[in-house]
């Protein structure tokens, strides 16, 4: 269910309600599945202590980057936070480099130097993820400026958590983007918590969108938990952003299934109630919903399963390749501090 808060109200609602074509539905499902299954492999292998990097899992939230990145059809420059597994995979589908980086291998996105919090595939539009809250946001604004100046047609997207909106630089970035008339997509993966501190304990505003709007962005809200809804919203928002040369702010409610960092759950922490989370979110899990939709598109269970198996196989192969890939030699420590002229 979409609650649009900007002037694009009607269009957005119609778009969101129109069923997407089957090919898109399948594409979204695959991308969701890729992110989910990849993280399931992380959960499985992390205890082996070969991926020695902090894991901020996307699980539960994948539909946000999956919907947005699909809507931008590869023509996005993605700036994400440390919680960027899903954003990386949604944008690049590159499980090889992804797992290689988590395993700290030369074949990784940063030859093992970046780790989980610093994924980068600039050639595929995933810029460096960042581990300091909100730091990636102004960078997205600058990239939008470059993209506009150079006429690349790419859309700059900043993914961040609701916690980033606590930070002054978020508001500075928003203001600058509006002022410079840059079509930046500010996408808040609003899981309601910064670690275990709820938004109400950090932000006095009634709603984030309400606070953002006067800064000169079009604001959109979505609490559907539905990847197709996010997809449609993002398409609409991007089109409007480019057309009006105005930033868009998308506040997408979502739920982090696992603990803040790590592969476990955190029901015992006491800050949220398992039953409520299960009822409100896990029961209508985006991946599950999308899988159900495929059935309504007349896809047989076996066809879906085959698709899943294919993706699973690819991921397994990536994990295997990563585990077998070479570890950077000690002398790589000093390489790449500065960019060397080719």
């Amino acid at each position: 269910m979409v609650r649009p808060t900007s002037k694009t109200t009607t269009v957005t609602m119609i778009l969101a309600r129109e069923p997407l074509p089957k090919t898109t539905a399948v594409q979204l499902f695959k991308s969701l599945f890729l992110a989910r299954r990849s993280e399931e492999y992380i959960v499985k292998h992390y205890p082996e202590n070969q991926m020695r990097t902090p894991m901020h899992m996307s699980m539960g939230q994948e539909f946000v980057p999956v919907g947005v990145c699909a809507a931008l059809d590869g023509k996005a420059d993605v700036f994400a936070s440390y919680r960027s597994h899903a954003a990386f995979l949604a944008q690049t589908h590159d499980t090889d480099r992804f797992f290689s980086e988590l395993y700290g291998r030369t074949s990784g996105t940063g030859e093992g130097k970046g780790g989980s919090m610093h994924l980068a595939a600039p050639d595929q539009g995933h810029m460096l993820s960042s581990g300091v809250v909100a730091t990636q946001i102004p960078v997205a604004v600058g990239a939008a400026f470059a993209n506009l100046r150079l006429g690349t047609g790419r859309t700059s997207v900043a993914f961040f958590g609701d916690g980033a909106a606590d930070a002054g630089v978020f508001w500075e970035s928003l203001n600058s983007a509006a002022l410079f008339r840059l079509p930046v997509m500010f996408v808040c993966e609003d899981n309601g918590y910064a670690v275990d501190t709820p938004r109400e304990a950090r932000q006095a505003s009634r709603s984030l969108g309400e606070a953002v709007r006067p800064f000169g962005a079009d604001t959109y809200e979505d609490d559907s938990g539905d990847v197709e809804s996010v997809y449609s919203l993002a398409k609409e928002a991007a089109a409007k952003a480019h057309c009006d040369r105005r930033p868009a702010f998308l506040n997408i409610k979502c739920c982090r299934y696992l603990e803040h960092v790590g592969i476990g759950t955190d029901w015992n922490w006491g800050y949220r109630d398992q039953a409520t989370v299960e009822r409100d979110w896990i029961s209508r899990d985006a991946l599950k919903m999308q899988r159900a939709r495929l059935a309504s598109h007349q896809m047989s269970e076996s066809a879906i399963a085959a698709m899943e198996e294919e993706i699973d196989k690819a991921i397994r192969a990536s994990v295997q390749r990563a585990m077998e890939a070479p570890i950077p030699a000690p002398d790589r420590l000093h390489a790449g501090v500065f960019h060397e002229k080719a």
Partner: protein
Amino acid sequence: MQVCFMRKLDYSGAIREAMSQEMERDPRVFVYGIGVPTWSKIFNTTRGLVEKFGKERCFDTPISEDAMTGFGLGAAIRGLRPIHVHIRVDFMILATNQLLNMVSNYTYSTGGKLKVPLVVRAVIGRGWGQGAQHSKSLFSNFTHIPGLKVIAPTTPSDMKGMLTAAIRDDNPVICFEHRWLYWAEEDVPEEPYEIPLGVGRILRPGKDVTIVGLSWMNVEARLAADILQKRGVSVEIIDPRTLAPLDENLIIESVKRTGRCIIADCDWVDSGFSAELSARINEKCFGRLKAPVKRIGFAHTPCPTVRELENEFYPNAKTIVHAVEDMLGLEAANLDGEDFFSHERRFRGPF
């Protein structure tokens, strides 16, 4: 006769106890910062405080380090005694403007009228492959600034006494805490006590070479000293404890005695605090040195994530042993049989 009750306490317990006792003693003291009352309790250092002192004196904040530092300054000049906690110094970087442009000169620019009893705690130290944004120390970025006191205690009992002194100090004190030290345990007096800021400590007396250790590197230095002792090398370890103002004499006297000095820092070497120490030692021990002062610290690269490169990035007891060997012209020993510290024995992710 003064009876002093001791019991084993770890470093995080020492921090907790210092804060708790000071909060009891003085209702103006409060502690705040991201995650302080919730979550990890900042490596257990804030455990129990919110239950004991309530939300008014132990509270969480928005992710707004800049404003929250100004907030501490405002509370401090208006009669309270805030302790602001950063779970990593890398996040305290967001407070740089307030610390350098405001906190450090409020007293001076008012002709000494305003006092700023503000403590800022910042965690440093290696974690689980944390990479470039969660690995800095930045001691020298703050010791460079007049008007800030900077401490980095190593032992639990030093920590308790120095943090107590910092809380009672009418000036801004930045307290660096290496996360691996949280596990360190020793006998610590139960009652509140102060260890004055600006006074260093000889952690281990020796005569062949002085190692000035900073924070965690004192632990590595002790390991190194044990190894070297077996080969007849007597190492003196000095922990400055307070980096600014520095107890220069203690260090100078030691180096004059031993004639040799290695500075073991857990920070980058270039323009690091080790540079300041080296400059002073060279100046004050001129003509008394048997070998050039040697600095040990991080490799001059951003911190990589992958363990194998991380191991190259961080110095440890081995680095120190080899530096001493080099300095004394000894052959490099085979250290295979030695038991070095590995954090992997203590924890395995995720952070």
